[in-house]
C-alpha cells in the first residue's frame, strides 16, 4: 500500500520539482502517473522509495514511513529505474544473483526466482552473456527482472516498456497485470496512454510538479469529458424530430442513419431510450457507448493546464 500526503521536493533551494502530491494506492491497484518530461514523475517515485528525502510532506510505503524507516521501505519495494542501470560486465545470471543477495534471498530462492524471471522474459539463453551485449529492450527486461527478484509487495515502475518491442511490452504488461491480481501495489510512470489505460484503475496527471487530476479512470472520464455518449445506428434513414426523448438525454450529433446522445445516467435512462426508439419505428442496428480514451482525458487536461499557465 502507498499513502502520500503533500509530498514535495525542492532542489538546490530554489526549484520545486514536486509540490503537494498526495496519493493513495491500495494493494491490488495500479496507479498510472502521467505527465510530460520533467513533470516530476521520477522525483515522486524516488521519494516513495526513500531515495530522496521529501522537503515537505510524508509517505508510507509498504507499511513503513519513508523518512523514519527508509531501509525497510527499500527492502519491500521493487523499483524499475528510468535508466536500466545494468552492470555491463556482468552476465544476466550474475546480475540477478547479485541483486538476489542484496535483497537477502536464500540461495534456493535466488536461483528459483532468476530461473522463473529469465524464462518469463525470454532471456534464458542470453543470461550467460554479458549484459553489455544486450539490446536496449533486453536490458530493460533484465532490469524489470531485477525489480521483481525479491517479489516485492510494492512496485514502482518508471517507464517500464519505453524501449521494448510490442511483444516484450505485452509480456511486461501481462506480468504487471498478474502481479496486480496477486495483491501487489503498483505505480507506473509512463507516457504510453494506451498502456496506462489497459493496466491502471487509477490515474494521476502531474504537471510541473503538481497533481492536476487524480482518481478512478471512469470517474475522471466523466469529470473531464462530461456525461457518457452513446450512438445509435439505424438500418434506414430515420427522422428523430418526432422522438420523445427521456429526461437527461440530449442529442449531440446526427446524420441520416446515426444519432449520438449525451446521457447523464445511462443505467436508468438507456432502457427507456431504446424503448422510445423502437416504439417509434426505428430499425436499430447497433446501440453502443462511444469509446472515450484516457488520451482524450489527458490531452484535454493538459490543454486546460497550459491555458491557465499562459493566462497567468
Amino acid at each position, binding site marked *: 500500500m502507498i499513502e502520500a500526503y503533500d509530498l514535495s521536493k525542492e532542489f*538546490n533551494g530554489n526549484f520545486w520539482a514536486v509540490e503537494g502530491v498526495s496519493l493513495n494506492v491500495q494493494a491490488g491497484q495500479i496507479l498510472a502517473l502521467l505527465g510530460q518530461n520533467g513533470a516530476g514523475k521520477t522525483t515522486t517515485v*524516488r521519494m516513495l*522509495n526513500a*531515495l*530522496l*528525502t521529501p522537503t515537505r510532506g510524508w509517505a508510507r510505503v509498504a507499511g513503513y514511513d519513508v523518512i523514519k524507516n527508509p*531501509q*525497510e521501505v*527499500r*527492502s519491500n*519495494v521493487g*523499483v524499475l*529505474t528510468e*535508466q*536500466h*542501470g*545494468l*552492470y*555491463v*560486465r*556482468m552476465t544476466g545470471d550474475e546480475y540477478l544473483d*547479485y*541483486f538476489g*543477495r*542484496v*535483497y*537477502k534471498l536464500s540461495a534456493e530462492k535466488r536461483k528459483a526466482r532468476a530461473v522463473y524471471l529469465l524464462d518469463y522474459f525470454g532471456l534464458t539463453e542470453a543470461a550467460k552473456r554479458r549484459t553489455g551485449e544486450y539490446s536496449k529492450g533486453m536490458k530493460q527486461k533484465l*532490469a524489470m527482472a*531485477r525489480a521483481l527478484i525479491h517479489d516485492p509487495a510494492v512496485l514502482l515502475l518508471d517507464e517500464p516498456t519505453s524501449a521494448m518491442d510490442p511483444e516484450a511490452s505485452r509480456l511486461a504488461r501481462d506480468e504487471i497485470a498478474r502481479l496486480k491480481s496477486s495483491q501487489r501495489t503498483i505505480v507506473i510512470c509512463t507516457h504510453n496512454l494506451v498502456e496506462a489505460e489497459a493496466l491502471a484503475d487509477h490515474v494521476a496527471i502531474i504537471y510541473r510538479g503538481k497533481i492536476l487530476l487524480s482518481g478512478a479512470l471512469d470517474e475522471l472520464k466523466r469529470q473531464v469529458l462530461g456525461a457518457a455518449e452513446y450512438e445509435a445506428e439505424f438500418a434506414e434513414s430515420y427522422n428523430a424530430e418526432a422522438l420523445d426523448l427521456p429526461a437527461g438525454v440530449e442529442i449531440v450529433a446526427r446524420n441520416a442513419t446515426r444519432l449520438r446522445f449525451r446521457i447523464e445516467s445511462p443505467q436508468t435512462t438507456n432502457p427507456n431510450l431504446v424503448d422510445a426508439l423502437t416504439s417509434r419505428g426505428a430499425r436499430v442496428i447497433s446501440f453502443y457507448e462511444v469509446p472515450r480514451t484516457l488520451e482524450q482525458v489527458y490531452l484535454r487536461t493538459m490543454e486546460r493546464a497550459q491555458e491557465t499557465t499562459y493566462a497567468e
Partner: protein
Amino acid sequence: MRNNWDGIWLVARREFVDQFRDWRIIAPMIIMIGLFPFIADANTREAINFMNRYGGDLILERLVPFVVLVIGFFPLAFTLGVALEAFVGEKERGTIEPLLNSPLTDSQIYLGKLLVGIVTPLIASYLSTGLYLALLLRRAVAFPSAYILLLILLLTFAHAVLMVSSAIIISVQATSIRAANLLASFVVMPVAFILQGETTLIFWGDEEVLWYAIVAVTLLSGLLVRLGLAHFRREYLLGREIDTLNLKRLAHLFSDRFTGKAKGVFNWYREELPLTLAQLRTPLLIVITIGVVAVFASYGWTIVQIPAYITITPERAEELRAYALSNASSLEMISSQLPAPVLFYHNARAILAIFLLGIASFGVLGLGLFLVNVGLVGGVLGAAKLIGFSPLLTFFAGVAPHGVFELTAFFLATAAMVKAGAQLVTPQTERSMGETLIVSIVDWCRVFVGIVLPLLAVAAVIEIYATPYILKAAFGL
C-alpha cells in the same frame, strides 16, 4: 554486525571481480607490478657495482629498504583510480540508482567501496615489493631485516588507507570522473611528501619514528572515513548539477551566514556573535583544560629536565639573572624594534595558521600547534624559576597584563577551530560537504573578526607600551 559485513563484502566483491574484467585497470596494474621491480633491481645492481669499488656497504644496506618503500608506493598511486571512480563512475554510467534503491545501508555501500579501493592497490603493491625482494635474493646485498620489512609493509598499508579514504570522499563529491581524476594529484602529492620524509628517516636509520608516522597516518585515515560517512547522502549521488563552480552562491552563503540577521555592527555584536559564542562553551572548556595542563607540564618539564642538561651553578644563575634584568631595563626601547602593529600581525598570523592546519586535519594538527605555543609560556616561567625569579611574579607582571587579552583571544580562536574541525566530521543531515566547510569557516571567522582581532590589537599595544614598565616596576629596576 554479521549482516553488516555481508553487505560490505557483497559490494566489495562485485566491484573486485568487475575490475578484473576491465583491461584499462588490468594492463597498467600488470605493467606496474612486473616492470618496476626489474628496473629497480637493475639499478640496485649498478649501485652494488659502484659501491663495491668504493667500499660503501653501509649506504647500500640503507638503500634497499628505501627502494622497497618506493616500489610499494607506485602501484598505489596508479591504482587509485579504482577508488576515485568508486561512486562517480557508477554515477556517470547510471548504475548507481539500482544500488541506492537496494536495502544496503549507507555504511555498507561506502565501506564496501572503500574495501575494494584499499585491497586492489595493496595487492598490486605487495606483489610488486614481493617480486623485487625475490629478485634481490640473487644480489650480493644484505636482505632487509624482518623488522624493517614489517615496518615497510605497514607504512605501505597506511599510505594506501590514507590515499583511498581521501579518494573515496572525492568520488562521492565529484560530479564527473574527469573532475575526480583531476583531483587525484591532491591525494597523491601529500602522500608523496610524507613518503619523502619517511625515506629520509629510513635512510638515516631513525626507524622508531616511523611507528608514529604509521599511527598518525592511520588515525587521519580513520577521521577521513568518518568524514566521508558523515557526508554520504544517497541524494547527492543522484544530483544533476554539472561541474560549475558557483562562486556567487558561495559568496552569498558566506556573507549570509556571517552577518546573520544583524541590522548593523552594534546589533551584530549584541544578537549574532553571542549565538556563535554560546556554541563554543564545550570546545572552550576542552581547550582551556588542555592549555592549563600544557602550561604546567612544560613548566614542570623545564624545571626537572633542563638542569639535567645544563648545570646551573649559583654564579651562573646570578649571571643569567643580571643579563635578563639588563635586557628588561632596556625593554621600553622595544617599541622601536618591534612596533605594535607588527606584533599584532604576527599573532594574528599564528592564529590563522592554527586554524588552517586545524581545518585540514579536523582539529588535530591545529591543536598541536596550540600546545606548542601554550607550552612556551610554561617553559619561559620554568626558565625564570631556574635562574631564581618568582614564576608567579613573572607571570603576573610579564604575561598577565597583555595576556588577559592575548590568551583570551588565543583560547577563543582555538576553541572555534576545534569546533570547526569537529563540525566537519559530524553527520549533517541538511547540508552538503561544501556547505558544511563554508559554515565551519564562517563560524570561525565570526569569532576571529568579531573578538580575536580586537583583543589582539589591544594586547599588542599593552605588550609593547605597558608590559615593559610593569615588569621593570615589579622587579624594582
